[in-house]
């Protein structure tokens, strides 16, 4: 049976922002639809309206000509609309089976049978009796999908499903989605990743600032045309100039080891590398292979043996992050809101946080607020942070703006080395471009970068040398020109 989903003149207004401005769209089963847009374009609001989490101010939703009243997530479920959220809606400490039975009216045994059938059909293999927190992101997503499939949905909405997946998991997901589509489930795929849209979808709707910009068939589009529609202007392609060969060594890591007491962390084994001035060393790898531990060891969150890290001819392995900053190192951690900034504090307060000594932000223990504010304004204008209110709490900045602020804050001491970990994770195209340009500029000023990233394209674009981390071990260091993404993929999988 054909499914037809119609969104008609939907408007949702938040104080100070129109999240959805009179949006109308129509979907038919048998096709995979992409809903494309930058962060804050209003696509998440729209799908939350479809799944009953948010109630629109105006507009109607029709499923097969029936006007749906979606006042709660329960209504969406009852009307056969399944949704997999970007941030999983799972109960971490409950077992997989408990997560699935909680909103089901079926008996334990029959539900178990049903889940087994689904898993067999789509080739999922998940232990139903272990807690969710022991699963990988890809497996968690499968649990979410099973949860939807149990109810035989007519519509399946996937909100930014690949942001936490490895490439392997992503291609598995695409296979499943295509299978669902063939079986008549209408699939709406929300993303800001253009490559995925081209790979997976049949039709694409682009949103920008709450408005629907275009609806078109994929075969009439390409990555550039979609990017321009999404951003609303022509994007320049950035390319790195080949670095001057320098042999002036800046940082050297020798026989670095780290053994964790936490069974969920990765141990680092015998890490050796060095970075010269003006160079960018990229470290590739599938997430969870020791990147986070490596970043912490390099930044001083985890202290190691004194002589294992030599920076500018000083042994600094036993120094904490603050002390390492005094030697002109700077850090941009992966988790912007948890590690890099304090969400409840204002922008200018966050700017002051990592500049205790080498700044004049503090006089005899008192905060020199004017100085910090002037300085924050400078960062905001120099780094293109899209706000003029430095009193804003940093949790209200979008990911891209927050990342620009953090990089700006780190660079203000003009450090010799910037260590960043997934600096463009979850950002939209415009912000990614800006961050990439900034990183290239750093290299051009003869400063160095260690770039730990799970994004292969980014690494190939920015690095001079590349190494791959797998299960806590680094591969040999290669020149970036000799490396292809296929070769990286093989190394990331653990082969030699």
């Amino acid at each position, binding site marked *: 049976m054909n499914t037809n989903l119609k969104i008609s003149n939907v408007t949702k207004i938040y104080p100070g922002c129109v999240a959805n401005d009179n949006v109308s769209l129509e979907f038919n089963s048998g096709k995979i639809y992409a809903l494309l847009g930058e962060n804050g374009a209003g696509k998440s609001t729209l799908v939350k309206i479809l799944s009953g989490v948010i109630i629109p101010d105006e507009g109607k939703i029709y499923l097969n000509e029936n006007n749906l009243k979606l006042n709660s*997530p329960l209504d969406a479920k009852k009307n056969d609309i399944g949704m997999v*959220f970007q941030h*999983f*809606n799972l109960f*971490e*400490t*409950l077992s997989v089976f408990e997560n699935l039975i*909680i*909103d089901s009216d079926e008996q334990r045994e029959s539900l178990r049978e049903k889940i087994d059938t689904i898993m067999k059909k789509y080739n999922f293999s998940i232990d139903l009796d272990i807690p969710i*927190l022991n699963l990988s992101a890809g497996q968690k997503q499968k649990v979410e999908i099973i949860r939807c499939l149990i109810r035989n949905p007519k519509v399946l909405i996937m909100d930014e499903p690949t942001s936490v997946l490895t490439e392997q998991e992503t291609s598995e997901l695409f296979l499943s989605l295509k299978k669902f589509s063939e079986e008549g489930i209408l699939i709406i795929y929300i993303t800001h990743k253009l490559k995925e849209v081209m790979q997976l979808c049949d039709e694409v709707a682009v949103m920008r600032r709450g408005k629907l910009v275009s609806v078109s068939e994929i075969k009439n589009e390409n990555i550039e045309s979609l990017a321009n529609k999404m951003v609303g202007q022509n994007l320049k392609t950035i390319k790195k100039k080949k670095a001057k060969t320098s042999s002036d060594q800046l940082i050297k890591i020798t026989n670095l080891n780290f053994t964790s007491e936490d069974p969920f962390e990765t141990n680092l084994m015998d890490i050796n590398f060095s970075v010269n001035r003006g160079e960018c060393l990229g470290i590739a790898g599938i997430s969870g292979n020791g990147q986070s531990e490596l970043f912490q060891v390099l930044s001083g969150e985890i202290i190691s043996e004194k002589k294992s890290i030599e920076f500018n001819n000083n042994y600094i392995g036993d120094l904490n992050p603050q002390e390492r900053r005094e030697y002109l190192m700077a850090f941009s951690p992966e988790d912007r809101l948890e590690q890099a900034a304090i969400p409840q504090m204002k922008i200018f307060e966050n700017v002051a946080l990592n500049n205790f000594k080498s700044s004049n932000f503090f006089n005899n223990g008192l905060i020199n607020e004017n100085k910090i504010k002037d300085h924050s304004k400078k960062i905001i204008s120099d780094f293109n942070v899209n706000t003029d209110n430095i009193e804003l709490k940093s949790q209200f900045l979008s990911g891209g703006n927050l990342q620009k602020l953090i990089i700006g804050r780190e660079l203000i001491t003009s450090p010799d080395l910037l260590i960043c970990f997934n600096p463009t994770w979850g950002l939209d195209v415009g912000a990614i471009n800006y961050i990439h340009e900034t990183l290239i500029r750093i290299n051009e000023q003869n400063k160095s970068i260690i770039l730990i990233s799970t994004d292969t394209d980014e690494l190939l674009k920015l690095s001079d040398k590349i190494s791959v981390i797998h299960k806590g071990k680094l591969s040999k260091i290669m020149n970036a020109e000799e490396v292809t993404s296929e070769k990286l993929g093989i190394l990331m999988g653990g082969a030699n």
Partner: protein
Amino acid sequence: MIIDINFIGLIIASIMASAVPLILASCGELITERSGVLNLGVEGMMIIGAISGFALMTVTGSLIIAIFGAMLAGVLISTIFAFLTQTLITNHVATGLALTIFGIGISAMIGKNFVGIPGKEFPVLFEGLKDTIPLLGPILFGHSIVFYFAFALPFITSYFLKKTKIGLIVRAVGDSPESASNQGINVRLVRYACILYGGAMSGLAGAYLSMIYTPQWIENMTGGRGWIALALVVFSTWNPIKILIGAMIFGGLTIIQFHMQAIGVRIPVQFLTALPYIVTIIVLVVISRDSRKIRLSTPSSLGKSFHKDN
């Protein structure tokens, strides 16, 4: 010889009796906390239960009305807490502390007229069987209905949380109220129910103190037991069976140190008095050391306000 064994039995029974209010209040608070709500008002709810039970017993003469009245009083005072924290989204810690202060104050006020009035005898079950088995007889038989209920409660609670659908929903809400809400669970309703249940159990624990354990009203008679109950919940890592163990150790050491003081053991009294607190915490910490299990049984949203935004 038989007399000696029965004497040991009596001591064990008295230890168990002193553990009853702790088990009741802890198991109630455990359900509240498993839903993600931290109610520090246990002491206040207990003492309200104690005075309500004693006052109702004196005024009406009915033990049944008194017991259920005490539970109802616990429910009523916890409703204040639920309304403040769940509807008005106030801070759990501050509200709970206020509840305790309020409870102690108002119980003292109501209790003025009941000081010095003797309590009633509370009926015990299986009195006749007490002497039939040595050692076990005094332990198993001749206790109040509340006593038996308290010792069944940890097992009922454990079964409820692990095996029933509602128990699963309570755990889910405590794990992630956002996810629960997105799954269509009414988070506020679940938390209200859990808070009210916790109130009822604290009320019952208080009534046990003023009607059965020491049948009289003394101002501030709960004497910090509510705080111990709270500590038991945390140090047992939200496990009802470990609450039972912890309550027994605490009750046991309290009784034994009394005897040691009476015999005149040459250990400073202050140390003896502090002993139950120290040992209970040490034992519970040691038996709950597994960090994985702690992670699995700790309600992730404990003490955090949940506000559904639209």
